[in-house]
């Protein structure tokens, strides 16, 4: 019986691996579509990201004469890391065998690997925009990463574990308990989510205005399949972050260990949560304005402080 459970869990892990990678662009398309509606545009439809990816994969890759192997291998590393990150976050059921190999600290580590590689690749060609983007990306992340870690620590403290399935299991069981520490953590997490996914007010995913670019400046030299992989990785990253948010703050309804019957309900609830989160993101982006780059550290510093405050509150109140 236990063997069956394990096989089932591994199959489920593989299924999540496939589902997230296919579904991630859909979420990006949904956010874009919501934004279009909010801005009184008709929008390109939720399937537009897939069309873009398909188009990019068809094209010939153009890379600079002096590009090093590091430049060529980076899109694959970034894509692999993001895919893995999205695949180890429990969203439908908590039985994910692979999450034993990588807990929340390792999850933050995966994001860091991708970030360091893409920053290095941005500096590889030696263009002005490349190093500008790398510098700004590292600037944003040196505050966002510890803030994210503190958010995850608050949840870990509550559940006495740094393993995502345990955290989600614990939090999903306490249905009507409101943790004050988690409230602070949630605020901090939203700021981190905006910053790390190159969203307004820190960055703008749809801009190519030189002075304001962060993420786009880094990937300026990429084209065709390399660009497609990086865009896809960005979608996966957004998906992963929103999944983390759902897993930490509204995990209710997720299927528990061995309760495979809970799956259909879990999937329906997840879809609803994802749609709501995407729409919320679109609203946030529409009502806010992009801020100057040197305001970003203050913005993220706030997130960091909020997260630390959340952790401190947990230490003081035990909740």
């Amino acid at each position, binding site marked *: 019986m236990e063997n069956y459970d394990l096989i089932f869990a591994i199959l489920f892990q593989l299924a999540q691996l496939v589902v997230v990678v296919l579904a991630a662009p859909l979420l990006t398309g949904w956010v874009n579509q919501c934004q279009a509606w909010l801005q009184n545009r008709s929008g390109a439809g939720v399937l537009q990201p897939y069309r873009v990816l398909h188009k990019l994969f068809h094209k010939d890759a153009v890379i600079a004469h002096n590009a090093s192997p590091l430049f060529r291998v980076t899109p694959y590393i970034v894509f692999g890391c993001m895919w893995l990150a999205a695949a180890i976050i429990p969203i439908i059921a908590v039985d994910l065998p692979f999450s034993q190999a990588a807990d929340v600290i390792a999850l933050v580590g995966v994001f860091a690997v991708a970030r360091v590689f893409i920053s290095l690749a941005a500096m590889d*060609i030696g263009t002005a925009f490349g190093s500008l983007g790398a510098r700004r990306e590292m600037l944003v992340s040196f505050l966002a990463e510890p803030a994210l870690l503190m958010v995850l620590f608050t949840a870990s403290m509550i559940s006495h574990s740094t393993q995502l399935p345990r955290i989600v299991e614990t939090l999903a069981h306490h249905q009507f308990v409101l943790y004050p520490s988690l409230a602070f953590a949630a605020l901090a997490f939203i700021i981190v989510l905006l910053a790390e996914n190159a969203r307004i007010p820190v960055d703008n995913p749809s801009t190519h205005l030189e002075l304001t670019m962060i993420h786009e400046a880094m990937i300026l030299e990429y084209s065709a399949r390399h660009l497609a992989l990086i865009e896809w990785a960005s979608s996966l990253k957004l998906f992963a972050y929103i999944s983390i948010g759902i897993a930490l703050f509204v995990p209710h309804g997720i299927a528990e260990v061995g309760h495979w019957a809970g799956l259909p309900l879990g999937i329906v609830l997840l879809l609803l949560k994802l749609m709501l989160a995407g729409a919320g993101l679109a609203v946030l982006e529409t009502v806010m304005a992009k801020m100057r780059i040197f305001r970003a550290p203050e913005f993220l510093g706030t997130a960091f402080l909020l997260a630390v405050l959340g952790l401190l509150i947990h230490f003081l109140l035990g909740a």
Partner: protein
Amino acid sequence: MDAVGILPLDVVGWLVQFWIVLGVAGMFLQRAPQQLNNIVFPLSALTSLLLAAVGLWALASPATVMVLPLGLPDLPFHLRLDSLSAFFLILLGGASFGVSLYSAGYFKTMAGGMLGLLCLEYHLFLVGMTLVLLADDAYMFMVAWETMALSSYFLVTTDHSIPDIRKAGFLYLLIAHVGAIAILLSFGVMQGGNGIDAYTFDAMRGAHLDPFWSSVAFLLALFGFGAKAGVLPMHVWLPEAHPAAPSPVSALMSGVMLKTAIYGLLRVTFDLLDTQLWWWGVLALGLGLLTAVFGVMFAAVQGDMKRLLAYSSIENIGLLLVGIGLTLIFHVYDKDALAALSLTATLYHSLNHAMFKSLLFIGTGSILHATGERNMGRLGGLIRRMPWAAMLMLVGVLAISGLPPLNGFVSEWMMLQAFLLSPGLPNSYINMLVPVAAAVIALAAALAAYVMVKFYGVIFLGQPREAALEHAHDAGTWERIGMGWLALLCVVLGLAPVFVLGQLDHVSQMLLGTQLGNAAGNWVFLAPVDTERASYSPLYFLLAVLGVMLLTSLLVRRLYHGRVRRSDPWDCGFPAQTARMQDTAEGFGQPIRRIFEPFFLIEREVPSPFDTHPRYHGRSDDRLWYILYEPVKQAAAKLSSAASLLQHGRIHLYLTYTFVTLIVLLVFV
């Protein structure tokens, strides 16, 4: 082996003697530098490797002691090899193996006479560090400590014709001795019993000090060893001395010598003193946090690659001190498992830092040889000229940034786990301190990644900033082997943490009386306390990322195509691209300088729009130097000028002084 009566300590003794022989042989071989490089340094490296192997053997064996027939009359040298010493011997051997192999290639261009002398000093340095780890009485310890300090002073001032290097060497010597005095006083406080044996470590272990004197001993040790390790505010020598020394020496100083100070602190705190107090831990934790943040902040604004690495060493020493502080706190409050966890994290990080910092320092040596340039603002694009050095240093850079699945991440992971498991300490103030400390650690780690992206990106990536860089040559064979060894260790220590932890358990058994163990029960998963709480498997992690990457690459090629076209960079269609448009080292560090502006003493010269020859100049200096050291320096200068009133250089005056002294003494005595 025991059957034939050979003990690990005997073997270490032979190896140390062999090192001395090699050093002296270097003096004799100075007319044949080729042989010196190709024979002496590889043999020395082999000795290092054997030393590491013996350390591994001794780690699991019971402690062995030996009394040498050397030393003062009635005060012989005592040696002891226990688990703690054995662990640091492994660290010393593992790191110096790579560095010595590298040295065989690095010193090729050096003139024979200088090389002979350097070879002697280099080996005396290694011997000094080994004996520090083995010493079992205060006298032997101080002799070994001074051997280490003096030999490294001479190594730092290898290029003594340059005034700045002489100055850096002097600063190093001065602070090393201020520290040594504190260590000596600390031993004085801890002495046990009467007579000539009072200064053996065994007597100190037996002496039961009251809390006040224990604290005095601890504070003196913290000051003394802190001065050697570069703990705030005694860090000033580090960024001066490390860039001044030849790169392999910087590697040994930063990778290994700083760890001997950590060793000393652990030895005094957990072995020689029998009581510990909680506020020692808080003090160490606080100092460590300050040091870590300070180090990484200053590393971010450096333009000289070796200075940058020196500041990064300060950061890492800060992290180690945080680990020691945490261990102290947990140990005092009888949280045995947690104390073992944080001690293990500290030791692991020492080992990791020894490997990746040595790797990066010798890597800068190759760059220095290839380009003659230490200033990152004049480098760039070296990944295309020096692919080997670039690839191997990338491993070091990723490891020091604390990225999985390499070794830096493992120790960071364990350190953070120790913080996460900490609630429930009886002291609520400490309970409040813990999350703040964890946040600061996370911040320092994230900033370290910033620093390393800058380091690697500015040196190796982009376009060459100077025309001369086109002629840069890659690292030689010996250099590649040396760097390759250290890079390999970074990977192995990252992928097989469970083996390492099994060995480290001997040390924590010795110091704390408890073991960490591995809850997962197999070698793939690292789970320090409880598999339900936390586990991490670097191997699966690596396999998963590689598997996913391979799958993606295959799928893309299968479903679409793999065509590539080379062209000019796009850069938003901007036509006139020059290498000067890239970020300089200062430019990349500018955001950090701006955010943490109050901490730096900034001196800037910004051109006005109307300058015909615009010149930009910026320097971020250390305020602490001006606050703490400058007054002392001036007071010393005043004192010495006052003393010079007595000096006139005339012989009759000195005779008068002697005569007056004699009269005064006769009157009084």
